[in-house]
């Protein structure tokens, strides 16, 4: 449908939404980034490249740049190796206990970000549980063994394979299995079929995941900050350090700019590749995948062993965390886990002590506010963009994707810089340092994903439904409310849940913009890793972590994992399909 600008302007609904949208985009998506550019190139109102010179002469800054690219490149290799392996052993090869393996690997989906980094530090770090145990056996060992680049790569590799589990699994399921059968009939071995038929077919998906991994490495904050030590700091922790002092804010902005430009270039490549098309669904009657036996006995044994070893690597930290959440700090630090040391006291504390519960409440509040606000707003916007397709709406859509193109660090920094003083565009309200800013930032960051998913949901609704309602006398608002909304409601709910999930343990954004008295969980958990000894604050962290894992697991199950049989009875509505198909969408 191609509706002219002229006709569009006749719709009052459109005019209202458009006015709000224009202001919002200008104030939150465009202006802050322009201000950030100004901070870099015109700090005193005159064009200058001084910031770059200063950056070039700062050794720490240059090191962090080099380290970031190094991390991104190394991760692209390690994450792909491990990710492809775990998907193959759970979905492609006939491995005993594949379900258990899958569930074990999938813990990375519910245990990531700062929570995971903190967990690893608490277990393997200088004063960590495992380190304590090891030091008991080998008193001469280096207690800081789990620090530096290797530790960062290790943690981020485990976390990064979540993309493979979600997207590569999906791509693999859509490979036409008849091509595999055909190849085998022509005498190709299991190994050969994998290399020449299966992997090439899902190659576009692997490229996409690789770029996401690369971007993740480039912009990493929590892992290098907590585990990198002094020797391995990367761009984003550096930006954070610089941003905290006014005299080096231009350096922070310049680094953010470098990060932003790199991100944009990579995403441009990714978009290109997406347009290059995929190989799926050539066949009209695809056959379901049948698991492949590994014929060679030794190879089979080796693959089994590697799979279960990896399972242990994935599972040990979250299992220990769960265990620790039921014990006292002293029992952990002394390494004496006796039966009596198990207790529910930590949980009781979180739920009875207001102060202990506060960070949890803050995170819930921000998460709920941002995820509901962004879905509600984007429902209207997505509909408008999908229905009216012309140059104006194309431009609006482009602007709304700015948070997708730019790293969240840059967005947060731009907001801080733009609104730390009265500005007419914000009605002279100062936002920096307020409670509102984090909420606003979350909404901004979630716009692209929400918009894409909702637009897809609306695209799945046939135009005819609307025409049918119109011919029966329903106005646009009535049609939206009674016909369209119920159809996209399940998708909208799923998107809200996913948004909520990812915001709940956010650290990377909060650390830039959170109000000191309203610090969400992510920051509190990160701070706990700074403590030298295990104390009761760390025990609280374990409880937070377990609760976060529970919430995330429930949401993931509701969105992705629920068998669809239970929903038969209700009149059918569009399912939140597609939420797991497109890796590009899930950025941020």
């Amino acid at each position, binding site marked *: 449908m191609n509706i002219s600008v002229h006709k569009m302007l006749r719709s009052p609904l459109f005019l209202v939404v458009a006015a709000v949208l224009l202001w919002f985009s200008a104030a939150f998506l465009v202006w802050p980034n322009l201000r950030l550019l100004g901070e870099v190139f015109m700090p005193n109102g005159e064009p200058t490249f001084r910031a770059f010179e200063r950056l070039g002469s700062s050794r720490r800054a240059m090191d962090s740049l080099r380290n970031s690219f190094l991390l991104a490149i190394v991760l692209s290799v390690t994450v792909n190796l491990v990710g492809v392996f775990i998907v193959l052993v759970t979905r492609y090869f006939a491995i005993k206990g594949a379900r258990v393996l899958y569930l074990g690997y999938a813990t990375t989906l519910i245990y990531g970000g700062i929570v995971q980094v903190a967990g690893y530090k608490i277990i393997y770090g200088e004063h960590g549980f495992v380190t304590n145990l090891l030091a008991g056996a080998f008193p001469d060992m280096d207690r800081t063994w789990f620090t530096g680049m290797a530790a960062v790569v290790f943690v981020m590799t485990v976390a990064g394979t979540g993309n493979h589990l979600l997207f590569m699994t999906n791509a693999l399921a859509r490979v036409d299995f008849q091509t595999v059968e055909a190849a085998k009939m022509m005498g190709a071995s299991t190994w050969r079929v994998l290399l020449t038929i299966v992997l090439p077919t899902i190659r576009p998906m692997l490229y996409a995941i690789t770029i996401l991994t690369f971007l993740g490495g480039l912009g990493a904050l929590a892992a290098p900050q907590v585990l990198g030590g002094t020797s391995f700091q990367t761009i984003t922790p550096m930006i954070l350090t610089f941003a905290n002092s006014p005299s080096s804010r231009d350096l922070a902005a310049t680094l953010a700019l470098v990060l932003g430009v790199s991100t944009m270039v990579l995403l441009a490549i990714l978009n290109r590749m997406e347009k290059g098309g995929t190989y799926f669904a050539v066949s009209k009657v695809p056959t379901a995948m049948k698991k492949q036996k590994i014929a060679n006995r030794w190879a089979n044994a080796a693959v089994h062993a590697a799979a279960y070893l990896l399972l242990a690597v994935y599972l040990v930290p979250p299992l220990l965390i769960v265990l620790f959440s039921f014990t006292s700090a002293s029992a952990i630090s002394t390494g004496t886990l006796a039966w009596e040391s198990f207790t529910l006291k930590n949980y009781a504390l979180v739920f009875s002590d207001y102060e202990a519960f506060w960070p949890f409440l803050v995170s819930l509040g921000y998460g709920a506010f941002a995820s509901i606000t962004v879905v509600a707003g984007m429902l209207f916007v997505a509909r408008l963009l999908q229905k009216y397709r012309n140059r104006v709406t194309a431009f609006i859509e482009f602007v709304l994707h700015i948070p997708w193109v730019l790293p969240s660090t840059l967005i947060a920094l731009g907001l801080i810089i733009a609104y730390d003083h009265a500005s007419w565009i914000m009605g002279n309200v100062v936002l920096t340092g307020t409670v509102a800013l984090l909420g606003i930032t979350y909404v901004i960051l979630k716009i692209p994903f929400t918009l894409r998913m909702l637009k897809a949901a609306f695209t799945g609704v046939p135009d005819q439904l609307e025409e*049918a309602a119109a011919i029966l006398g329903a106005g646009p608002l*009535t049609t939206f409310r009674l016909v369209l909304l119920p159809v996209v409601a399940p998708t909208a709910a799923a998107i809200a849940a996913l948004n909520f999930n990812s915001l709940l343990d956010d650290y990377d954004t909060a650390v830039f913009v959170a109000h000191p008295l309203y610090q969400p969980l992510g920051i509190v958990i990160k701070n706990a890793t700074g403590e030298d000894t295990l104390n009761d604050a760390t025990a609280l962290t374990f409880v937070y972590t377990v609760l976060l894992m529970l919430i995330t697991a429930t949401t993931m199950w509701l969105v992705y994992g629920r068998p669809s049989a239970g929903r038969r009875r209700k009149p059918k509505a569009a399912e939140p399909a597609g939420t797991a198909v497109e890796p590009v969408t899930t950025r941020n």
Partner: protein
Amino acid sequence: MITYENIDVVFDDFHALPDFNLTIGEGEFFTLLGPSGCGKSTALRTLAGFIDPTAGEVYVDGARVTNLPSQRRQIGMVFQNYALFPTMTVRENIGFGLKVSGVSKAETTRRVDEIASAVELDSVQLGKGVTELSGGQQQRVAIARALVLRPKILLLDEPLSNLDAKLRHQLRGQLKELQEQFGITTVYVTHDQDEALTMSTRIAVMNKGRIEQVGTPQEVYMHSATEFVCNFIGDANRLATGTVAALSALPRGVRGTAALNPASASYLRVERVGLHAPGGKADDGGARLTLPGTVRARQYHGVYSSYRVELDVRDGGTVKGIIQETRHRGFAPGDRVDVSIDPADVLQYPGADAQGAAQVPALTQLAPLPSGASQ
């Protein structure tokens, strides 16, 4: 009742309907027939008010409705996929129009029940979700929903195209019955010639946004006005030059032959081709031309078989004819046969470039629809 007057519809730079003119009478079951992409839906949706024509006017009952929004045109519509609201029950679907126009609850219930019984939906079905219905039941819900507001006109855009062949046949009958029962003026869009021929009062055959012919099913079949219509509807042989020459060389005085022009494109419907064993019956008094030939292929269809026969005459080409599978044991490839053709059955059109001028086929006679195999 409905008039399109010089309607122009342009999408971007694509001229979907150039100067479209059409009049549809009260109570007619009028069909827009044509190949995919010829503009049928565009014409229908212009009448429904979903497409604003770039030029021209649409009249309903003498009143200009060109700029009236859809809901004020008193039109009901059944969509290709029925467009039933998936989140509502059958009752809510049918009552939707009444609800949004503010009709009271009691009145809504009464009218939904009334229309539901007219389309034979029972109270159990009314409480179900629309996805729990069979294709046929869904169609009845769609019709009930379209009719409950008592529109003057019912529009249907290929409502049967998504169903399997058997159901399609069955629903075709039900649809026609309902239309007759309500007596409502109906505009029907299809690319299925069978559907058009069996259901319509009149048919407009469209091609590339233009109307090629408007007429009753018999008229468009028997007197196809253009070469396009002749090819699109039914199955016709394009006669080779040698055969046409032989036909036009028949003694004058025999009815009709005078006008046969060997230079024009000439067609003969397959069921009008007579096939006999050599020297077999010489039927109606020499009016027919008999040409010997050899059977080259046979295709068995159950009700009938079709034969491709190569004619002996110079440049005679091949013709396809059919024989009902009654007691005739048929011919086999290689068999010699006599092919008989009545020149009066030949449809002629001037050269393709002058097609527009061919408003009337060169000659034909009015005859009953072929009893046999074309269906």
